[in-house]
């Protein structure tokens, strides 16, 4: 038992390193959800400061360490616990969730924490469900009509679709999706089947089964009560936690079988797994921001950087640039001002060369301009222009 705190500490540090690497890249800009949270907790970072994301990294690492502790408590087996902690902690969906500021880490933390702390069979489940419902109706929204019972079964079927889980990810929105990647690694599919086999046909540990069933049950309840239009990654997060645990079990079982046959096979599989991991890492680092650039605020960030450098000029934009205006309100320096005006007002004001007028592509027509006529333009990270300075 003396080893346990050390190993948990190592798991925690390992998580911190993996989740905290290059924190200002992938995603390389703010989401509006982050802005809202930062306003709420009264943190006002500069345009290039992403250190507040360490909060999520920290919570994510805590979750994984707690999960390690929970599984160890139920199995007494370091390998199973480590396999599950690795499988969940490394999953693409969990990595992304732990790399930007969001409130959706709280439900996962609550469930893992409650299941770890409370010992009796029914209480933890009950407390977890109550806390999830409290989270749903007091923190997210009290709007009950956003629950669409008729869509529950089709949505759930989509959530359990093997192609979506292991290859496609959230097909409804790319915001939290690594390109060409599902919620898990490709090879996790193999582990998933082994995990199911282990859980139902091999495992005799009832306590472990109860924990896994509880995670699934809370996941289903959470999925049911969350708004139907919420991103799949967030709505299904507890079910993904369940799948991650199954994958971890699967890897444990699979490697156990494999090592009985030959250690060489174990190495081969680990090698293939590493290639899969590197491939996903490359997709995350080099392509995540480019494929999702319109979902985040890279264009707004560079526009605001430019505006800050021209701090003496008044800035004007129409409500077409509302997204920019909202970020501006949050990221601008204290004494700077920008105004939202109509296109007619802009036509007058923009005659003055001291004024900075920002328009979007569809507004250029009102000034008889084409996008190639404009010298200063700001682009999404994928290179397509979005804001033009007249």
């Amino acid at each position, binding site marked *: 038992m003396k080893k346990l705190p050390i190993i948990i500490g190592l798991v925690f540090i390992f998580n911190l390193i993996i989740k905290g690497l290059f924190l200002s890249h992938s995603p390389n800009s703010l989401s509006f959800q982050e802005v809202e949270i930062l306003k709420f907790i009264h943190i006002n970072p500069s345009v290039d400061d992403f250190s507040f994301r360490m909060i999520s990294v920290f919570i994510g690492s805590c979750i994984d360490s707690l999960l390690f502790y929970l599984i160890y408590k139920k199995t007494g087996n370091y390998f199973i616990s480590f396999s599950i902690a690795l499988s969940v902690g490394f999953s693409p969906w969990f990595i992304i969730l732990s790399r930007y500021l969001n409130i959706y880490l709280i439900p996962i933390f609550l469930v893992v924490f409650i299941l770890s702390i409370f010992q009796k069979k029914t209480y933890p489940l009950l407390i977890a469900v109550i806390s999830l419902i409290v989270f749903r109706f007091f923190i997210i929204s009290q709007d009950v009509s956003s629950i669409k019972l008729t869509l529950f079964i089709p949505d759930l079927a989509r959530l359990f*679709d093997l192609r979506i889980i292991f290859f496609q990810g959230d097909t409804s929105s790319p915001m939290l999706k690594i390109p060409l990647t599902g919620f898990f690694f490709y090879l996790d599919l193999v582990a998933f089947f082994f995990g199911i086999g282990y859980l*139902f*046909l091999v495992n005799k540990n009832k306590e472990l089964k109860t924990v896994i069933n509880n995670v699934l049950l809370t996941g289903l309840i959470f999925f049911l009560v969350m708004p139907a239009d919420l991103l799949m990654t967030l709505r299904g997060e507890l079910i993904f936690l369940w799948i991650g645990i199954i994958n971890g079990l699967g890897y444990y079982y699979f490697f156990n079988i494999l090592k009985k046959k030959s250690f060489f096979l174990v190495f081969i599989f680990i090698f293939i797994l590493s290639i899969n991991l590197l491939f996903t890492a*490359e997709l995350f680092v*080099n392509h995540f921001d480019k494929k999702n650039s319109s979902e985040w605020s890279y264009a707004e960030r560079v526009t605001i950087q430019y505006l800050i450098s021209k701090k003496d000029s008044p800035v004007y934009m129409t409500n077409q640039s509302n997204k920019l205006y909202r970020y501006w309100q949050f990221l601008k320096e204290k004494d700077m001002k920008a105004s939202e005006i109509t296109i007619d007002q802009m036509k007058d004001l923009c005659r003055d060369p001291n004024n900075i007028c920002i328009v979007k592509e569809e507004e250029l027509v009102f000034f008889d301009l084409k996008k190639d006529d404009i010298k200063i333009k700001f682009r999404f990270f994928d290179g397509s222009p979005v804001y033009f300075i007249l």
Partner: protein
Amino acid sequence: MFMFKSKKIYLPALILILLISFFLRFYKLSSIPNGPEWDEASVGYNAFSIAKTGFDEWGNKFPLIFSAFGDFKNPVYIYLTALVVKIIGLSIFSTRFINAFSGSLLIFIWYLIAKLSTKNEKLSLLTAFFLAFSPFGIYFSRIAGDGMMLSVFLISCGIMFELLYIERKKPIFFLVSVISLLFSIFTYNLARVISPILIILILFLNIKISQNKKIYLVVLFTVFLFALLFLKQFGVNLKSRLQYVGIFGEEKGTVLRIKEYREHDKNSLISRITHNKLTGYGVTLAENYVAYFSTQFLLGFNDSHLVYESHYPPLFIAMIPFFYFGIVLLIKKLFEKTGPENKAGKIILLSLLFIAPIPAVISEGISGKRSLAMFGIMQFLSAYGLIFFFDNLKDLSQKKIIKFIVLLLISINLIHYLFFYFFSFPKVYGKYYASRENRICKFMKDNYQNYNYFVYSRKINGFAYIFPLFCLSYPPDQYWKTRSYTEKDGWFTVNSFDKFIFPDEADPNFISDIYNKKNKKIAIFLNEDENKKAPLSIKKTKLPIPSEAHNELYLYELKTP
């Protein structure tokens, strides 16, 4: 089904299931779905041509592959249909007969497969029951297509005879098994991928099992003969077909994606290592493959206008968990310590499951018809998972409740499907099964003597000529004499035969030209676009079209001066 307690009921239950299967596959076979659609018409007319003359529609004597529209149809289904056409004449019923019949018999074949591989009567009956009511089974048995259900039937026969060989060791079963699989290769394209792999697997497995080595030589010689025939076919069409339907090609999605991802990273070394054809196709193929085990396919209502998609999920929703469970269970059983005979059966069944999606995986999009070889094994595994699940439920009251729920869900799904197929489907999707072309055809048949020319363009249907050939059972020798056609990129375009003219488009120039023919009475069909452009100066009388058309269609009578 899984509540039978008395063994006496097994045989009547099987007979009942088989009778229901035949009923569900033959009831209103000529009218649900509408038809014939163009491929059915082509298959039917080629069969008719063979039955009448021994030549196909292009005048080739007993061909090994039928050129048809230029899409090269496999021969087995057409020759078998020719026998039916010889007896009962050319009709939609005779064209679809072989598929409906083999689709019905398939239930019995899978009953035997289940029985041979598990020795469990309940499980075998449940497999037959699931197959009898399977949406895929009913749908694909009721269209001729290119003989896809016959091909699945032959593959299943191959497996059944191999299991029989494993059990009884009679060499004839080994030979019949391989011959069935070989014939399937000449029936539908999916078997070209699946059957060779199964044959190799069977040959490999039988090395351990077989005591009679002579049979090996006979089988190998048979395989060699068929391989020669296949090679002759292969040169004709397989490459062009792969380019046409496959994911491979410089302008296809995967290659375009590789280019895009390389550009993201300015074509750096890392981007070239991570994004190349090997990784690109690897990911696409793996993703496509997994799609066939995913809920999107297993529970997907394919709301498309394609005539070869069943528009209904292949499995009933309540069966899905048992299907997955069946897979895990069969894999686990494979690793249990048993003799090679016992293992061989399981290896064959699992191989079929994992090989079956391959023809669909290498083509674009999710396709029911290309993954049809999964039909049978899916139902077997669902039954396998379900029986095991209930046999291992110890709590009796819990068992009863779950049984009731599962039965209820399956019954609801079943009733919904039957209602869908026999009532909603013809109304909603019937229009895609060439209903417009067949209405035109009916008019031409009823008024053949009243007009000098019948005109409709390839804007209405690209393969317009096949419909009058089919519905008039037009004598092949007269067709060969009077037709005019062109060939481009391997596709044939028939421009006219007898009284029938099929221009590319019935545009104003064409209509003016045809109006210049002296003293003729012409029936001309125009689509909405052609109708708008038709010259006003020409006197034409509008005629009613029999029953409503899904796209605006206009019929005029022209009397030239």
